[in-house]
C-alpha cells in the first residue's frame, strides 16, 4: 500500500524538472464551476480529468481554480481557460473525454477548441 513517505521522492523529482523548465512560461488559469449545479452536472470528474491530463503532459504552469454558479446552470459543467493577455474562453457541457483535446490544443498550443465553446453552442 502507498505510504506518505513516498512524497519526498516525488517532490525532489519535481524540483529537478522545474529547474530544466523553460523560463518565461506564463501562468494559465483553468477555472471550474463548482457550485451545486456544476457538481450535479459532472464537474468533479471533469476536474479530476484536468489534473490527470496536466500530470500526464508534465505541465506545471497551470493554476486550476474554482468558481461558483454563474447563472448558466443548464450549460454546466463549465470551465474557463484563461491565457494571460487573451480573452477568456468558456467551454460548456464539458465532459472528461473533452479534456485531453482542450489541454493539448488550447493550453499547450494556444489554439482554443472552438467546437466545445459557449460561442459554438449558442450558434
Amino acid at each position: 500500500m502507498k505510504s506518505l513517505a513516498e512524497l519526498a521522492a516525488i517532490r525532489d523529482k519535481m524540483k529537478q524538472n522545474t529547474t530544466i523548465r523553460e523560463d518565461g512560461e506564463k501562468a494559465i488559469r483553468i477555472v471550474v464551476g463548482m457550485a451545486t449545479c456544476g457538481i450535479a452536472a459532472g464537474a468533479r470528474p471533469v476536474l479530476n480529468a484536468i489534473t490527470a491530463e496536466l500530470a500526464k503532459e508534465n505541465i506545471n504552469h497551470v493554476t486550476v481554480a474554482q468558481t461558483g454558479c454563474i447563472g448558466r446552470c443548464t450549460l454546466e459543467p463549465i470551465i474557463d481557460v484563461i491565457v494571460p493577455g487573451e480573452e477568456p474562453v468558456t467551454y460548456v457541457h464539458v465532459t472528461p473525454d473533452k479534456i485531453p483535446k482542450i489541454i493539448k490544443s488550447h493550453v499547450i498550443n494556444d489554439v482554443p477548441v472552438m467546437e466545445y465553446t459557449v460561442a459554438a453552442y449558442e450558434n
Partner: protein
Amino acid sequence: MMDELSLNILDIAQNSIAANARFIEIDVIENDDDNTLIIRVKDDGKGMSKELVETVENPFVTTRTTRKIGLGISFLKEAAELTGGTIELDSTPDVGTTITATFIKDNLDRQPIGDLTATIIALVTLNPSIDFNFTYTVNENEFNFNTKEIKTMLGDDTELNNPPIVQFLTGYVNEHIVNLNGESI
C-alpha cells in the same frame, strides 16, 4: 438530487469554503452495529445566525445575494430523510458550522457513498490554502488524511496541488479507502 453521497459532501464543503473557512473537517462513519452511515462536515467559517439556521433547509428561503446557501443543504436533507435518517445543523456566528447527516445504512433508498477519493482530491486541488482533515471510519477501522501533515512533509516551496503530487495523493487515498470498505470505487 446528487447521484452519490460523496457529491453531497463536495457540495456542502463548498458552503464552508464560501463561508471563509480555513480548516474543514470531514467525517464519514459507517457503523454496522447501529446500521448508520454518518456524514459530518465541520468548519471554522463565519457561521450562521439562529434565524438563518432555521430557514436554511428550505431551498426557497436563501441568502441568494451572498450565495452562501443554495440547494446543497436541501439535497443532503432529502437524501438523509429518504432513508429514515436525519440532518442536524449546529452553527455559531464567527465560530463555524457543523452539519451532521445520519443515514439508515441498509435502507433501500440510501444512495451509494460513491467516489470519496474524487471528492477529497477535488477539494484539496482547488483549495490549497485551506486545510482539510478527512476521516473515514468503517466499524473499528479508520483512515485519516490531513493536509496539514502533508504540507509539513512537502515543505514550504512545494504546492500541494502540483499535478504529480495530486496524482500520487489520488492513488494513496483511493487505496486506503478501498482497503477499508472492501469495494472498488
